[in-house]
C-alpha cells in the first residue's frame, strides 16, 4: 500500500512545531524578567543565539544522530540524514518526515536554552555558544536517540514495563537540569550572591514568558502524540490542569512559608507543573494530572531554596524546577501511570503494575542525569581551561548587557512629554565606566 498522507496530523505537527518554537522566546522572557535590568539582554541573547547554533547543527547532523540507524543503541548514524535532505518528500506515511525534523529541532533548541537560566549575569557569550553547540552534539543528540530513537532507554523492558517519557521529562528537563547544575558549579557564583537580593527586574516579563511557555507547551506535549487524535486531546487537557495544580500548589507553599503568594511563584509553579506532566501527559487521567502538577508545585517550591543551603548559584532555578520537576513527573509515573487508552501501556504501582515501571523510570532518569552531568562538566572544565568561561568582575559589576552587547535594555523617559532625555545619551553607553 502506498504511504498515505494524513493532512490533519500533518497540520497538527506543523502547528506544534510553531507552538514549541514560541517557547524559545517564552523561555527567554521567563528568564530575562528574572535578571537584573543590567543583564536582561544578555539572557535573551543566550537563549536566542544558542537557538541559532543548535538549529543549524540539528539539520546538519543532529537529527541524524538522534534518529539515524543506531550504533549500539547509543547514538544514531551521523550521515543517515546529514543535511536532512533525505527527509524531503511531498507526502509520507501519516506525515512527511520533514515535519518531524522541524518539530524535533525546536526540542533541541529549547533544551539547550533551558540551561542558560542557570548562568545569568556572568558567562562569556562566546563560551556559552560553544558550550551550547558542544553539549547539544555530545549530550542532547545522543540522549534524544536513547529515548526517542533506537536507543537503550527506548529498549528498556523490565518485567514487561517500558520507560514512559511521552514528551521528554527525561530527555529534556532532567537532561538540561543536570547540565545546568554542573555548569554553575564550574562557573561559580554571581558576585554578591547570596548576600545581595538580585530580585527580578520585571515580573510582568516573567509572566509573559510563563504565558508563552504554557501556550507553546500544548504543542510540546500534545504534538508528541504525533497524531491529531484523542491521545493528543488528553495530553492537551492534562497540560492545562496539571499546570493549574502546579501553580496553585506553589502559591500555597509560599503563602504558608513566606506569608505572601507571589507572581514569581505563580510563574514558577506553572513551569513546575508543565515540566512534571511532560513525561506523563498521555498516561494518566486528568484528576491524576492535577495531582502530579500539585506535587511538583510543592516539591519544586521547596527545592529552589536548596541552592542557598548547598551553595551553588543556579540563578533562575533550572535545577530546582526542571531537574526536580522532571524527576517528579518521571518517577511519579512509576506509581500512578494507568493504561488510559487500553492499549497495554505500562502501568504503575497503584494500578497493579508492581515496581517494574518505577524501576525503569528510575534507570532512565538516573542514566540521563549522570551522563549529562558528567559530559557537561567535562565540557565546562575544558572550556574554562582553554578560553575562560567567565566575564571579568568589572564587566559583571557594570553589567554584561553593556560590557558584552554595548546596549542597555531600557531608555524609558516616563515624563514622555518633553522627550528631554530620550536619545540624548541616557540610554547610551558610558564606556569609561567599564
Amino acid at each position, binding site marked *: 500500500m502506498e504511504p498515505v498522507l494524513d493532512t490533519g496530523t500533518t497540520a497538527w505537527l506543523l502547528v506544534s512545531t510553531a507552538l514549541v518554537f514560541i517557547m524559545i522566546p517564552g523561555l527567554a522572557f521567563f528568564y530575562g524578567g528574572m535578571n537584573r535590568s543590567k543583564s536582561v539582554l544578555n539572557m535573551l541573547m543566550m537563549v536566542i543565539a544558542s537557538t541559532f547554533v543548535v538549529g543549524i547543527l540539528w539539520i546538519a547532523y543532529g537529527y541524524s544522530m538522534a534518529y539515524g540507524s543506531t550504533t549500539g543503541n547509543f547514538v544514531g548514524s551521523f550521515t543517515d540524514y546529514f543535511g536532512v535532505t533525505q527527509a524531503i518528500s511531498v507526502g509520507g506515511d501519516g506525515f512527511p518526515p520533514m515535519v518531524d525534523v522541524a518539530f524535533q529541532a525546536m526540542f533541541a533548541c529549547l533544551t539547550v536554552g533551558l540551561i542558560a537560566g542557570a548562568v545569568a549575569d556572568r558567562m562569556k557569550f562566546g563560551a556559552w555558544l560553544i558550550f551550547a553547540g558542544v553539549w547539544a552534539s555530545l549530550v542532547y543528540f545522543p540522549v534524544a536517540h536513547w529515548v526517542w530513537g533506537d536507543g537503550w532507554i527506548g529498549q528498556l523492558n523490565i518485567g514487561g514495563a517500558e520507560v514512559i517519557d511521552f514528551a521528554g521529562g527525561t530527555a529534556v528537563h532532567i537532561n538540561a537540569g543536570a547540565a545546568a547544575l554542573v555548569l554553575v558549579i564550574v562557573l561559580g557564583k554571581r558576585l554578591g550572591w*547570596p*548576600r545581595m*537580593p538580585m530580585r527580578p527586574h520585571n515580573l510582568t516579563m516573567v509572566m509573559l514568558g510563563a504565558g508563552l511557555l504554557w501556550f507553546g507547551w500544548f504543542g510540546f506535549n500534545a504534538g508528541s502524540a504525533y497524531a491529531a487524535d484523542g491521545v493528543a486531546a488528553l495530553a492537551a487537557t492534562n497540560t492545562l490542569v496539571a499546570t493549574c495544580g502546579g501553580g496553585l500548589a506553589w502559591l500555597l507553599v509560599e503563602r504558608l512559608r*513566606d*506569608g505572601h503568594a*507571589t507572581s514569581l*511563584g505563580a510563574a514558577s509553579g506553572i513551569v513546575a507543573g508543565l515540566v512534571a506532566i511532560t513525561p506523563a501527559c498521555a498516561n494518566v487521567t486528568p484528576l491524576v494530572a492535577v495531582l502530579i502538577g500539585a506535587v511538583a508545585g510543592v516539591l519544586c517550591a521547596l527545592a*529552589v*531554596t536548596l541552592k542557598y543551603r548547598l551553595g551553588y548559584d543556579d540563578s533562575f532555578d533550572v535545577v530546582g524546577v526542571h531537574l526536580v520537576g522532571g524527576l517528579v513527573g518521571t518517577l511519579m509515573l512509576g506509581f500512578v501511570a494507568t493504561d488510559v487508552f487500553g492499549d497495554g501501556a505500562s502501568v504503575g504501582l497503584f494500578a497493579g503494575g508492581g515496581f517494574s515501571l518505577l524501576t525503569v523510570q528510575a534507570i532512565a532518569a538516573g542514566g540521563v542525569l549522570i551522563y549529562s552531568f558528567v559530559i557537561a562538566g567535562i565540557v565546562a572544565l575544558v572550556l574554562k581551561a582553554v578560553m575562560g568561561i567567565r566575564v571579568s568582575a568589572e564587566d559583571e559589576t557594570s553589567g554584561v548587557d553593556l560590557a558584552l552587547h554595548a546596549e542597555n535594555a531600557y531608555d524609558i523617559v516616563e515624563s514622555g512629554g518633553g522627550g528631554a532625555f530620550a536619545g540624548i545619551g541616557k540610554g547610551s553607553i558610558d564606556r569609561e565606566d567599564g
Partner: protein
Amino acid sequence: MKLITAVVKPFKLEDVKRAVEEQGVHGMTVTEASGFGRQRGHTEVYRGAEYTVDLVPKVRIEFVVDDADVPRVIDAVVGSAHTGKIGDGKVWVTPVESIIRVRTGEQGPEAL
C-alpha cells in the same frame, strides 16, 4: 529665602502636598529617590531566601519658601509625613540667595 528639602515615604506624598498647600505653599519640585538610614539592616524573605535591604524608596521634595514660612512649612511636612515608624525621613533647610521665575523673570518672593 530658604530651601526646604524633605525626604519622605512615597505614599505620604499626597498628604504632604495637601498639608503644605494649606500653609499657602505655592509650589514644589519632587524627585524619586532611594534612602539609606536606620532602616538598613532590615531583612526580608523572598522565594524562601532571606536578605538584607539597604536602599528603600523615598520621595525627595523641595520647597523654596520665604524665611518667615519655614517653621510652618516644616511643621506641616513633619506632621503629615509622620507615621512613627522607622524610615519616616528627614527635613533639612538650606539658605537660598535668590530665585527667579522663568516665565516672567520676577525675582525674590514674587517668584514663588
